[in-house]
């Protein structure tokens, strides 16, 4: 309801109008400042060579080629692991546990908690479990696995929502046809739940790309081109962090990398909201 409820009547109403518009103006101003600043400083440095060249002089000059590669690899690992597990758990939760069973409740509750856990804590866990216990060291593999743990809650919850959105009548009619439960899931439910899955996937990828804290001590710092999954690789967000904190004179490239990251994320979020509004007729999952 963007309609005017009524015209401003008295002092208090005027005050409220001023307050609300003021707040909105302030928020807009700060955000335009922030975005403008990044675009302004970043745009002049972005070029094809910047995207492909390796960083030189600790990143002060040169590009972000290897870093993009590492980022993609980390994401790749994260998705290969989290997708099957995520879908599996979601199917289990939505189809094989009732809303009120103890197992379902506990799992759901812990997923909600996990979704809220600070990423640095995931980082700690990843460091202890993947790097140390499993002996993977600082590597793209441990980074990707850690991120997988992080995005799983989101993925599971939104896929589960997708499954629940499938009308019960589908289930009943397939059961009436005498099809087995597995067939039902594979042929009827999975396709129907794809939209929910996609939204969850895109949101998860967004969260993973933006992540820094969990990666610092799992995937490591090294800015070379990674040679294998067991190599340490530097993600884009860590690159920005490192350039701005530890490398004096790295601001220009930091800005450019930040712009790249923001554009990537915008594309991802755009896809998510597009999927949520047009690809399907269900409510968007907001994180």
């Amino acid at each position: 309801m963007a309609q005017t409820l009524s015209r401003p009547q008295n002092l208090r109403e005027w005050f409220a109008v001023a307050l609300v518009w003021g707040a909105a103006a302030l928020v807009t101003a700060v955000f335009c400042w922030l975005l403008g600043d990044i675009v302004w400083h970043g745009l002049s440095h972005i070029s094809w060579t910047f995207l492909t060249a390796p960083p030189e002089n600790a990143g002060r000059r040169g590009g972000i080629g290897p870093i993009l590669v590492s980022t993609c690899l980390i994401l790749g690992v994260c998705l290969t692991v989290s997708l099957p597990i995520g879908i599996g758990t979601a199917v289990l939760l939505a189809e094989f546990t009732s809303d009120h069973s103890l197992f379902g409740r506990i799992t759901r509750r812990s997923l909600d908690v996990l979704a809220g856990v600070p990423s640095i804590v995931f980082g700690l866990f990843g460091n202890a479990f993947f790097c140390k216990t499993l002996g993977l060291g600082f590597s793209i593999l441990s980074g990707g696995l850690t991120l997988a743990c992080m995005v799983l809650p989101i993925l599971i919850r939104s896929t589960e929502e997708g499954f629940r959105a499938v009308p019960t009548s589908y289930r009943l009619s397939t059961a009436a046809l005498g099809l087995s439960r597995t067939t039902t899931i594979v042929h009827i439910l999975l396709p129907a739940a794809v939209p929910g899955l996609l939204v969850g996937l895109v949101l998860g990828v967004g969260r993973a790309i933006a992540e820094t804290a969990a990666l610092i001590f799992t995937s490591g710092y090294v800015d070379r081109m990674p040679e294998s999954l067991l190599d340490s690789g530097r993600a884009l967000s860590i690159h920005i962090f490192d350039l701005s904190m530890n490398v004096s004179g790295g601001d220009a490239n930091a800005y450019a990398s930040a712009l790249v990251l923001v554009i990537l994320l915008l594309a991802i979020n755009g896809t998510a909201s597009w999927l949520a509004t047009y690809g399907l007729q269900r409510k968007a999952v907001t994180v």
Partner: protein
Amino acid sequence: MTPVEPITGPRARHPLEERSVCQGPQSLIEIDRLSLYYVDKPAFQDVTLSINKGCITALVGPSGCGKTSFLTCLNRLTDLIAGCRVSGRIMIDDLDVMAPDTDVIQLRRRIGMIFQKPNPFPLTIRRNLVFPLREHGLRDRGQIAQTIETTLRDVGLWDEVKDRLDSPALALSGGQQQRLCIARALALLPEVLLMDEPCSALDPLSSGVVEDLIVSLRSRYTILIVTHNLTQARRIADHAALFWVQNGAGRLIEVGTAKQIFEEPRDPLTAAYVSGMRG
């Protein structure tokens, strides 16, 4: 801004004069060639009608003929609906309702509205009554308490809720909620009450209670009531107006005293409609 009598506590109760006020031809609201369009679709057209002071006027007619839309014009609730266009003139006393510089806040205070579905706010019973009063400038605690008690007594709710004024209003029964909404409107000392099917969401018992309440308000307030219950309209109304859909838009077909409309209708449509009541 039109000078409106300030709210200073409960208005002295008129002795119930029973229809006496209504018998005089004293018109309070004059509606002149009023039409309303939702975007380009007309809801009703060319309604000319005068409403007498202190009377109960029933608006009847089939679903979708624009009765609700008509009521919302009178307190300019139409302002809230995007794409809603109104033409024509409404005069209440000497206040031009549709004029752009009319103070809608004061206008709506003078004209209370009761909706089909009871809509108490999700607050306590007391807050439901106190909050509008305070917003309209009544600060004195004693007077507020006094007003709450009188209006709740007026709607016959006082004995039922006096011990739980601070419990949520939504925990009341449907009939009680509707009476609370009426009390909420009465507390602001309106002159006119618009009631949009106030009994249709209620069971027969609560409906009867609300109906008695409406009758008891006659002559203190000028009441416009929309109802699909023709026997009810007949029981309580002094005047009746029949709306009908013609050429895709609502029209006022016939207006007269309740007795005349229900017993000797002039228009064949009216005759058919009210005989549905008998049949």
